[in-house]
């Protein structure tokens, strides 16, 4: 019984500590994240750039997976930064694709490699279509 109690207490403390850590995340400037991206990844071209259906599909995917943190219109929310900010809007499609694929794991953004590659590009297409 003591083992069970110790396990449950340890679990609760760990989860609490993680919550505290996360509340201070997302404060790394976008420029620092962009600076870490390998050159080869920056140069990647968006295969959906000229696909007329891609922005609408990308918007749907964004609402399904990203809006929770970045807001419905990508303007930022408590848990995720504004994706309409200058630094991100000027980023190349390859740079954005790298961030979506790898996340910024130590800063709270998960990797989204579980989405198939075409879906990640569809999201980028919508992001790049934002006014």
């Amino acid at each position, binding site marked *: 019984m003591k083992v069970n109690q110790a396990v449950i207490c340890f679990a609760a403390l760990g*989860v609490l500590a993680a919550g505290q850590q*996360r509340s201070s995340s997302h404060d790394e400037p976008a420029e620092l994240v962009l600076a870490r991206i390998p050159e080869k990844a920056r140069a990647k071209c968006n295969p959906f750039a000229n696909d007329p259906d891609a922005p609408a599909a990308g918007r749907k995917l964004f609402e*399904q*997976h990203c809006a929770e943190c970045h807001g419905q219109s990508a303007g930022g929310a408590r848990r995720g930064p504004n994706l309409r900010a200058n630094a991100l809007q000027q980023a190349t499609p390859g740079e954005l694709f790298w961030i979506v694929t*790898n996340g910024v794991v130590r800063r709270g953004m*998960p990797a989204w490699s579980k989405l198939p590659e075409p879906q990640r590009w569809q999201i980028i297409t919508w992001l790049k279509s934002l006014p």
Partner: protein
Amino acid sequence: MPLLALLCLPFPLFAQESPYIVTYDHHLEEPGNLEVEYFSTFGTQRAANDFHAYWMEFEYGATAWWTTEFYLDGQTTFGDSSLFTGFRWENRIRPLRTEHFINPVLYIEYENISEADKIVKEVEGHDVESDHADLNAALRETHNHELEFKLILSKDFKGWNFAVNPLATKNLLPSDPWEFGYAIGISRPLALRASSAWCTFCRENFIAGVELYGGLGDTQDFGLHQTSHYLAPAVAWNLPSGWTVRLSPGFGLNDNSHRLLLRWGLSREFSGFSEMFRSLFGGRP
């Protein structure tokens, strides 16, 4: 009451869940999200009665690199009885910051379960069908405290996911040997690009795959001798409403295995759990 609170969480999310039930890939729960899952296993049993084993999973993304899960297990053996068989606490930690050719995740689990546990969430050591043949009253007398370690190796390539999970388990009794096992999975969505409309039956909402898992003996008798193995096609259906449905019939590959382990599951992912949790303890939401 806690379950009622879960249902009231503000944001059910569209999930992109893999069809695997035994195998793990390297994708963790999104930070702050809670996934509540229910799974069932109907198992055939030679020389005794068939059973229905079930478990609840509470999977929480503690950070983007750490997912923690709590399980509650139970089972009903037809013509015998129903009972709670124990709990598990599992942690998955992603050591690398970015995606690599192969992505490792470290897995550690503490199990406090009785011998009556039949969910067959993993197969290890010399686990065989006849282990489940005794009456529940006898099986429940023995409780196991175990630590389980897995190395999750996973890769995504052109829409396919390939995952391999070697595992090692140690009963905390010093006299018990280390036991070994494996799980291998391959899966792929039925469509790689998304349609622009919200839809329930779009091909992109379905992910199909197959799992192969079994035991590899223990430190005293390593290998395939007296072990059981299963091959299990699996499919996941991710609904726009946030629910995920999984189905997986598993077929025993030798005489030590259950002939059939038919599994199904229902899960839903919620965001905003960490904020609710913090506010419950008086913190800033």
